[in-house]
């Protein structure tokens, strides 16, 4: 027996790879529009990275560091700002809906984690690269720092590594927010600082206490920083740093995806998904 609704012709979109792209692009486009309209994006993109580069550059002057040591510090500065901005975009996939209390609309649609994560991350990559370019210009102009000193291939891998780390951090932030609600919002800003503290941002990981070095060895960014600095003549802390970094990244992407999927299921169970829409 047909239902009355069956008597009406409804054109449904077939599930194809193109629809996957469309759903992903929808998230990317939303982040772009928000970036254009909100003044805090300008601060994220230009103000804080600019201030960080100038203040750290001046610190290297004050400490009378040579070009090699200046590179060590400024690579860390660039990594922190790039990862910070890029991971924020991934977190915005959930944070925009929490701030506007519109969470349920997103989860009423037939989307998957991949759409929100990749769509937002692509904008994050664009913004992260912009931040890097801005800092490269300031660093080169004010402190004579050569960002391509380690070679263009090394630089490209370093940026890719930073952006992938941002995806992982962003997904974990989304998971925390969906598990603990608005109380976990600050993790969007705190997570990066916590991570870079262990990954040897302004110092080699060898100066960390033993237990912290174990933690550092589990963070992909540690390997990317180490590999990038090797290009500037620093002694390697890890063998096959690029390989280990990307292998760990692959593992964490899978883990982060699982964590977010579990967090969504749990928030559907506890009702938090609805509370975040009220």
């Amino acid at each position: 027996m047909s239902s009355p609704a069956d008597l009406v012709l409804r054109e449904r979109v077939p599930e194809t790879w193109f629809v996957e792209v469309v759903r992903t692009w929808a998230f990317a486009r939303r982040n772009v529009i928000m970036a254009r309209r909100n003044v805090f994006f300008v601060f994220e993109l230009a103000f804080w990275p600019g201030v960080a580069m100038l203040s750290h550059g001046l610190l290297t002057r004050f400490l009378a560091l040579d070009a090699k040591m200046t590179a060590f510090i400024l690579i860390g500065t660039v990594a922190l700002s790039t990862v910070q901005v890029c991971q924020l975009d991934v977190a915005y996939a959930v944070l925009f809906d929490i701030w506007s209390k519109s969470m349920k609309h997103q989860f009423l649609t037939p989307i998957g984690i991949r759409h929100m994560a990749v769509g937002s991350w692509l904008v994050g990559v664009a913004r992260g690269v912009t931040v890097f370019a801005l800092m490269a210009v300031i660093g080169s102009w004010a402190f004579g720092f050569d960002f391509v000193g380690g070679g263009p291939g090394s630089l490209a891998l370093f940026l890719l590594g930073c952006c992938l780390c941002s995806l992982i951090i962003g997904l974990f932030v989304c998971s925390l927010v969906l598990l603990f609600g608005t109380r976990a919002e600050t993790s969007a800003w705190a997570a990066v600082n916590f991570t870079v503290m262990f990954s040897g941002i302004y110092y080699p990981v060898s100066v960390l206490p033993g237990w912290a070095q174990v933690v550092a060895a589990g963070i992909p960014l540690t390997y990317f920083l180490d590999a990038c600095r090797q290009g500037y003549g620093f002694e390697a802390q890890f063998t096959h740093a690029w390989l280990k970094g990307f292998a760990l990244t692959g593992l964490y992407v899978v883990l982060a995806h699982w964590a977010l999927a579990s967090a969504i299921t749990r928030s559907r169970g506890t009702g938090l998904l609805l509370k975040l829409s009220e």
Partner: protein
Amino acid sequence: MPAWYDCRRMLAVDAKDLTKTFRSGWFGRRRKEALRGASLQVPSGTIFGLLGPNGAGKTTLLSILATLLLPDSGSATILGHDVVREAGAIRRRLNMASGNGSFVWSLRPGEVLSFYGGLYGLSGRRLRMKVDQLIEQCELGPYAKTEYNALSTGLKQRLAMAKALLNDPEVLFLDEPTLGLDPDVSIRLRAQIALLRRERGTTIILTTHYMREAEELCDEIAFIKAGRILAQGTADELKRQIRIGDVISLRLDPAAPRGLGDLPGILQLQARGEHIDCTVDAVDKRLPEILRWLYEQGVLVRDCQVHEPELEEVFVELAR
């Protein structure tokens, strides 16, 4: 009511014994039972009203059916798909709008619709046409350049309605759709809801606190209280089920004779001089009997009026 209503009772929604308890506080010690075995059947292509006092479990029930919330126990299907195991399949064919809905603050109406349209897989010319059609249908054209935060309550609700129609849903949940709207906007929105059912055969489940709205729109109504469905049926059936009764107001000459209250079917009698109000179980049956009896007693009936109970009275009675 459409002609096919009675002959095609295929269920769009079939929920059985749904329970849901929300836990809060340390280790989930504080518990609030939102649903305690709610069962609901909604025939396809109908407008179905879900009524109940605040905190009765209406939104919880809708949220479970909309795949936004997982039930603790029980089962529910939407268009034959299980709400827990086949959420993806349901989401393609279902949508929801609520009176207190919200969207991202900086987006304009067209951008909100484009974003969610994209999530439903619409793109290119098809997406633009759909967005333009909904903007026109919901009279949002003059506000195309206005960001969401600057829209009035009525416009925000129109946008919520437009968003809910993006995927041409077969099942549409409306959670207090006319909450806080001006009367003229409410009337237009109600007309739009009725049109959706008539032209698209959409099954619509709506919660509302406005009894007139429920009576005007709904083919069937369920009353929920403390997480249980207490009654379900058409408005007339509900009135009969809870036996509020119809009131027959009579002006008699001479005043009410003894023995009137002993007649079958009279639930209550209130006399004020020559005026008397008889509450009866079924006015069609009891009115001729009463008039005949009064005639036999030699009582002259100077005036006779019949008041059917309002749905509001049913609500008050059930919510008690």
